[in-house]
C-alpha cells in the first residue's frame, strides 16, 4: 500500500522538534519585570549614548499607554510582561573565534552552521546571536574592504551612531504598535547593516537568532540600510530549544532602500512550535517593514514553520516612484500552531508595483490565516498589484483563512487578488499514480510544486538550510 495523505498527516503529527536542545552556557540575566529602571539598566549595560536612552524611555512611556492588539485570528494566553527577564547575555566575551566556548561551537554545529566550515566553503558572513549578544562575526575584513558595515546593533551604536540615529525608528516608529513600542524600549541587540552607495554586496549576509536562555524574551532589532544604487541579500534564520513555558519574541526589522537600491530579505523561522498537545512554544510577534525610495526594490521571502503563535506582516512602503515590493511566503502550521501572517503593500509613488505570493499549509489542529493589505493612495498613478494566496488543508480539524484588505483610491491602478483553499486533489494524485508515481511521491510532488514558487526565491545558500529547517513539516512531502 502506498503512502496516503492520512499517513503524511500522521507523520507530521508525530514528528518531534528536532532542534530542541539547550546549551549550558553561563549567562548573566536581569531579574524578571519591566520598569523604567530596567530600561535604564539595559541602556547602561550596553553603554549607550543619551539619545538612545531617551529613545528607549520615550518608547517605554508610549508602550505603557498602549493595549495589546486583539484583531488577529489567534487565541493565546496574554504574555505576563512582568514575569519576563529583559536581558540575558553570555557572561564570557570573546576576542577571536578560537576563544569561543567549545559548547557554543557545538551548538552551532548542531544548527549546521559551523563557522570553520562556513569560512572555507560557503562564503557567507554570519553574525551569530546567542540570546542577546553577538558572539562572533566573520568575513568582517572582506566586507570592510567594500566599506560595508555588518555588525551587531550595539557595536553599530558605538561605532556608527550617526547612521543608527538617522535611521532607527524611521520606518517603524515606537508608536507603531504595542510590540514595536515594547521592542523599542527594551531591545537588547540585533544586527546592523549598511551598504554604501553603488556597492553590490558580494555575499549573502546571514544572522542566526536563537533563543537560548529560559524565560528571556528576545527583543531583536535589525536595521538594514542600502544606500543609493546598492544591493544586498540578507538572510535570517532561527531555531529555538524545546521549552515548556511560552517565550515571547517581539522583534523589529527595518529596511531602508534608498534610490535605485535593492534589498532581498529572506527568513526561515523554525522556533519551538509547542508539543503535540499545544503546550509551550514561542510567541512570535514581529514588526517588519521596508521603505522603498525611487526606483528601489524590497523583496521579502519567508518560510515559517515554527512558533506556537505567529503574528507577522513584513510590509513595504512604496514611497518612491517606480519602486517595487515583493512578498513570498510559505507558512506551515501543525498541531496547535496558530499563524496570522501576511503583508502590507502601501503604494504612495507613481508606477509602483507589488507582488504577493502566499502559500499556507495547515495540518493537525492548527489555524493558518493570511491577512494582507494593498493600499493605493490617490497619488499613486499606474500602481500595479498582483496577489495570490493559496491554502492547502491537510486535516479535517485545521483551518485556513484569508482576510485581504484592498483599498484603492486611484483610478489608474490595476489590482488583482485571488485566493484558493482546497486539499490535495484526489484527481491530481490519481493522475500521478496512473503514470506510475507512487502515492507518497505524488503527494510530495504536489506539495513541493505548491511551494516551489516561494522556495525558488530563496538564495541558493539558504535553500539548503531551509530544507533542513523545514524538515519537521515538509520532510515527507519534499521527496
Amino acid at each position: 500500500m502506498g503512502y496516503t495523505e492520512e499517513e503524511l498527516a500522521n507523520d507530521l503529527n508525530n514528528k518531534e522538534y528536532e532542534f530542541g536542545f539547550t546549551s549550558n552556557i553561563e549567562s548573566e540575566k536581569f531579574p524578571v519585570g519591566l520598569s523604567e529602571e530596567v530600561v535604564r539598566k539595559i541602556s547602561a549595560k550596553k553603554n549607550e549614548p543619551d539619545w538612545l536612552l531617551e529613545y528607549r524611555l520615550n518608547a517605554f512611556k508610549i508602550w505603557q499607554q498602549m493595549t495589546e492588539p486583539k484583531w488577529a485570528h489567534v487565541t493565546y494566553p496574554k504574555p505576563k510582561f512582568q514575569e519576563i527577564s529583559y536581558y540575558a547575555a553570555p557572561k564570557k566575551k570573546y576576542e577571536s573565534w578560537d576563544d569561543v566556548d567549545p559548547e557554543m561551537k557545538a551548538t552551532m554545529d548542531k544548527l549546521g552552521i559551523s563557522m570553520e566550515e562556513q569560512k572555507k566553503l560557503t562564503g557567507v558572513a554570519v553574525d551569530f546571536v546567542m540570546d542577546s549578544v553577538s558572539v562572533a562575526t566573520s568575513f568582517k575584513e572582506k566586507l570592510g574592504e567594500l566599506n560595508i558595515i555588518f555588525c551587531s546593533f550595539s557595536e553599530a551604536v558605538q561605532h556608527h551612531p550617526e547612521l543608527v540615529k538617522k535611521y532607527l525608528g524611521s520606518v517603524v516608529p515606537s508608536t507603531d504598535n504595542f510590540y514595536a513600542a515594547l521592542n523599542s524600549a527594551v531591545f537588547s541587540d540585533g544586527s546592523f547593516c549598511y551598504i554604501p552607495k553603488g556597492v553590490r554586496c558580494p555575499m549573502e549576509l546571514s544572522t542566526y537568532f536563537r533563543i537560548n536562555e529560559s524565560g528571556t524574551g528576545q527583543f531583536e532589532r535589525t536595521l538594514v540600510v542600502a544606500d543609493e544604487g546598492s544591493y544586498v541579500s540578507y538572510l535570517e534564520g532561527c531555531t529555538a530549544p524545546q521549552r515548556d513555558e511560552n517565550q515571547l519574541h517581539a522583534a523589529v526589522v527595518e529596511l531602508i532602500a534608498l534610490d535605485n537600491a535593492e534589498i532581498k530579505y529572506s527568513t526561515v523561522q523554525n522556533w519551538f512550535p509547542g508539543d503535540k498537545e499545544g503546550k509551550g512554544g514561542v510567541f512570535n510577534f514581529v514588526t517588519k517593514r521596508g521603505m522603498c525610495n525611487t526606483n528601489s526594490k524590497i523583496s521579502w521571502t519567508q518560510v515559517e514553520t515554527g512558533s506556537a503563535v505567529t503574528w507577522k506582516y513584513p510590509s513595504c512602503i512604496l514611497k518612491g516612484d517606480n519602486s517595487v515590493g515583493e512578498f513570498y511566503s510559505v507558512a506551515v502550521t501543525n498541531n496547535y500552531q496558530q499563524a496570522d501572517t501576511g503583508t502590507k503593500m502601501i503604494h504612495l509613488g507613481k508606477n509602483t508595483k507589488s507582488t504577493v505570493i502566499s502559500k499556507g499549509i495547515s495540518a493537525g489542529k492548527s489555524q493558518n490565516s493570511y491577512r494582507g493589505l494593498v493600499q493605493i493612495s490617490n497619488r499613486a498613478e499606474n500602481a500595479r498589484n498582483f496577489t495570490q494566496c493559496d491554502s492547502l488543508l491537510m486535516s479535517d480539524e485545521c483551518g485556513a483563512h484569508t482576510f485581504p484588505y484592498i483599498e484603492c483610491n486611484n483610478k489608474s491602478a490595476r489590482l488583482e487578488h485571488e485566493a484558493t483553499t482546497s486539499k490535495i486533489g484526489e484527481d491530481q494524485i490519481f493522475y500521478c499514480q496512473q503514470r506510475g508515481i507512487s502515492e507518497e511521491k505524488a503527494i510530495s510532488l504536489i506539495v513541493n510544486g505548491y511551494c516551489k514558487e516561494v522556495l525558488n526565491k530563496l538564495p541558493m545558500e539558504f535553500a539548503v538550510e531551509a530544507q533542513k529547517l523545514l524538515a519537521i513539516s515538509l520532510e515527507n512531502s519534499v521527496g
Partner: protein
Amino acid sequence: MTTALVSEKLAAFIAPFEIPSNVFQKEAYDNLIQLDFPTTRNEYWKYTRVGKIQNSKLKIQKETKLTADVLKPFLSAANFIVLENGIFRADLSHISVEGVKVDVIKPAFISDETKFNSASQQHLFTALNATYFSELISISVAEKTVMNEALQLLVVTSGNAVFSNPRIVIDVHKYADAKFEASYVALNADGAFNNVVTAFFVAENAHVVYDKIQNENNPGFHISTEEVAQEKNSRFKINTMTLDGALVRNNINISVNGENCETHINGAVIAKETMHVDNHTFVNHRVPNCFSNENYKYVLDGKSTGVFNGRVIVQQHAQKINAYQKNANILLSDFAQINSKPELEIYADDVKCSHGSTTGQLDDDAVFYLQARGISKEKAKKLLVAAFIGEITEQISSDEVKKQVNRILAEKHDWML
C-alpha cells in the same frame, strides 16, 4: 424598569421617538439601549461612517398619504404590495396569487408562534428596527406553489427626515417556487432613513429568487439587512442593484442549515457624486455538500465610495463545500474609491473555495477597437461599462425589472443599454 442608556449619541438619536409599550418592543428597547453606533474601529464598519445618520433629527411618521397615481411609474408587476414608511397600504396593494398570503401583524400581537420573533438583536440597526417598526409584514407562500411572476414589494419612504423601519418576513414552504422583487423608492424624502429588515425562511426543496432594486433619492440613507435561513435541497438567489442613495449599506446574512443547498448572491453598484455604497455579505456553511457563488461588480464615478466585504465561513465537518466569491471594480474618476475585502474562513478540509478581486480601468484596447469602428471614445466607454455591469443585470429574473433598471441607468447615469 428601564436600564440607563449606554451611549449618549444613541440617547440623542432616539430621544424624539416614543418608548414602545408593547411587550415585544419593550424587550427590544431594553436590548437597544445597551448598544451604540458602530465606529470605524469596528471591523465591519471600518470603511463606512454613520455619523450623518447619527446626527440626523428624524421623526417616525404613522399617518400615510400616498396615492395610487404617484406610485404608478414604479410598478413593474401585476401583483404588488405597497409599504409606506413601513406601513402596509392595503388600499394601494394588489395581490391575487394562489397560495400567497400576506398578513399584517402589529408588534403587540407578536407571539412565540410568529416567525422571526427574536426581540434582542446584537446589531444596532436591526435592534432599532425591532424597537420601532410599526407592522410586521408576513408573506407566506404555501407548499408546492409555483409563482410564475414576481410579487413586487414597493417599499416607499415618504416625507423629509422620516425614520422608516419596514419589517418583512417571507416564509416559503416546501417545494414552493417563489419570486420577489423589492423596489426601494424615496418620494420627497430628503434626509430620510430607511432601515429595512427582511427575513427569509426557505423550506426544504423550495426555490426563491429575490431581486432588490435600490433607487432611493440622494440624499437619503438606506440600511437593509436580509436574514436568510435555508433548509435542505433549497435554492436562494438574491440580486441587488444599487442605483442611488447617499449612504447605502446592505447586510446579507445567509445561514445554510440543510445539505445540498445552492446560494447565489449577485450585486451591482453604479455610483456617482458622493454616494457611498457598502455591501456586506455573510454565508455561513454549517452543513456539508453545498454550493455558494457570489459576484459583485462596482462602477464608481465622481467622488463615490464603494465597499465590498464578502465573508464565507465553512464550519468544521461541513465537507464538500464549493464556495466562490468574485468582486470586480471599475473606477471612472480620480476621486472614486473602492475598499474590497473578500474573506474566507475555512475549518473543513475537503472543500473548494476561492475568491478573486480585481480593480482596474476599462481596457484601452477594447476602447480603441470600438473607436476604430467609428464609435466615439465617450460612447465606447459607456458601452464597455454597460457590458461590464450586464453580467449582473442579466441575472434579474423579470424582463420588466430589467427594463426598469436600464431606464434608471439611462436617466440617472446617462447610460446606453
